[in-house]
């Protein structure tokens, strides 16, 4: 290989290396431009006072957290007791993100279970999948409990335990 050729090779490789680093850095920047904005991330906390929202046994309510529906069900005495319930005093609650784990539609409460209109998935009062394409139970949102007040978005021992019971 002559001296002339290797100098050209060196220039070529240098050019390719600079272009590759610059290209990769640009891609990282472009990727980050599509990330959720800081204001979106910061607005991620919601409180629900279970004693003060007029919950009736067997009639779930729908609350909102991070633009997602949260199902809050006060269980009746006839309903199965489940390790993954949120227990506060004598009362047992189901608190889940109300999005079907198949493709994210909002199932609606039909007598004693949630039914999804999109692809026919069904979930029982514990939030466990019982029929159709959903691959797993409803997801438990991270929350902490202070007396009867839930703070959604803040990971606490109760929500961790509920997640573990469904794993």
């Amino acid at each position, binding site marked *: 290989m002559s001296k002339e050729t290797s100098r050209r090779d060196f220039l070529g490789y240098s050019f390719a290396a600079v272009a590759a680093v610059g290209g990769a850095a640009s891609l990282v920047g472009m*990727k980050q431009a*599509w*990330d*959720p*904005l800081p204001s*979106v991330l910061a607005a*991620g906390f919601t409180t629900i006072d279970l004693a003060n929202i007029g919950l009736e046994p067997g009639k779930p309510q*729908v609350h*909102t957290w*991070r*633009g*997602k*529906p949260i199902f809050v069900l006060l269980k009746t005495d006839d309903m199965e007791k489940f390790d993954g319930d949120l227990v506060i005093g004598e009362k047992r609650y189901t608190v889940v993100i109300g999005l079907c784990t*198949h*493709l*994210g*539609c*909002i*199932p*609606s409460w039909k007598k004693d279970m949630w039914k*999804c*209109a*999109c*692809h*026919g998935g069904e979930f029982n009062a514990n939030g466990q999948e019982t029929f*159709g*394409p*959903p*691959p797993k139970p409803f997801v438990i949102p991270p929350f902490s409990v202070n007396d009867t007040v839930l703070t959604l978005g803040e990971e606490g021992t109760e929500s961790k335990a509920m997640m573990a019971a469904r794993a």
Partner: protein
Amino acid sequence: MAKINESLFTAEGFDKRMNAKKFWKVMMTEYWIPKDINFLWAMGVVLATTFAILIVSGIFLMMYYKPDTALAFDSVNYTIMQEVAYGWLFRHMHGVAASVVFLIIYIHMFTGIYYGSYKKGREMIWISGMLLFVTFSAAGFSGYMLPWGQMSYWAAAVITNLFAGGSLEAWGLVEWIRGGFAVGDATLTRFFMLHVFLLPIVIIGIIVLHFYTLRIPHVNNQESEDIDYDAEAEKYLAGNKKESKVIPFWPVFLSKDFAVLGIFLIFYFYLVFFNYNFAMDPVNFDPANAMVTPAHIYPEWYFLWSYETLRGPFFDMFGMKAMDIGLIIFGLAQVIFVIFPFLDKDPDILPAHKRPRFMIWFWIMIIDLLVLSVYGKLPPTGANAWVGFYATAAFLLLWISLPFITKADAKARGAL
């Protein structure tokens, strides 16, 4: 550079600078098309025209549309539909053309499959065409989100949620695509950008590529005859137009295209003026609401068949979750047509009517896609779920059998 003394503003001077006559000859008057074709060969020009209609009507819509969750719904349903002069016309033209363009794409695709126009030298035509199908699908999906009605919102929620399956969830891919925890303002604005800028630019690029891929292998013909284009073109140019097996693209081929195009446009404008409702789902005239899923959601008709393969497998099988099986088949359905040329093991280019087993395969595939489309729109309960399941299974079996069926035809003909 050769010295050019003629003024730019004379025909000769212009031609000397731009070589326009030569360009016209290469692209038009000496671009050869076989004579032995039928109206199905006009679909390319029909598609190009429909795409032009989409661009023009889209430009007018874009001048009043607002890509903001607080304004989008009213900017479409109040401003464009009621205030802008002919705003309703541009919206209905855009919506109906977006629907009809898929009808023509499917006809164009299955014409290619029937006549074997995807193989032995024509693979790049097929592959670039399927890239167009994928980019048109992306454009259709992103555009459907813009009116920000209930169907817009929930189609966006369900389809972006596909990227939350399995380990994709851990990568935060779905939040990245949406720009938030749920489909929202950031999602709407970025899909607006994709719909009105990035995707149209990419589509135009691929259309140019698609036209170019035709140039070397030429268009196929009804009997898949191998034509010596140089010899036939020479006959035509020497005046033996009757004997020659070819015609020039302009003016001869295009005159026939324009006749077909005329009939198509009568059909299209009939839909625009008298039957636009099929492209305007009533559910989408309710503003987007993240807290209420419509009772029954379904995509536009052209996505129904692949949507049905997603939900066809509704119970766990082979140690896999129903959802994962559905996702795998759905993913496969999006790309499997691209590799058609490589699954066809017949060494000859022949139309389906000369390949008896393939002919049966072809019609079963069309019937299966129609069944999938019909059941994709029905609620997935009871017997419907089973029809969907078997139609999805049939879809898979058809693809698995394709190499064997095409080989069997070749053997029976003595070609293998």
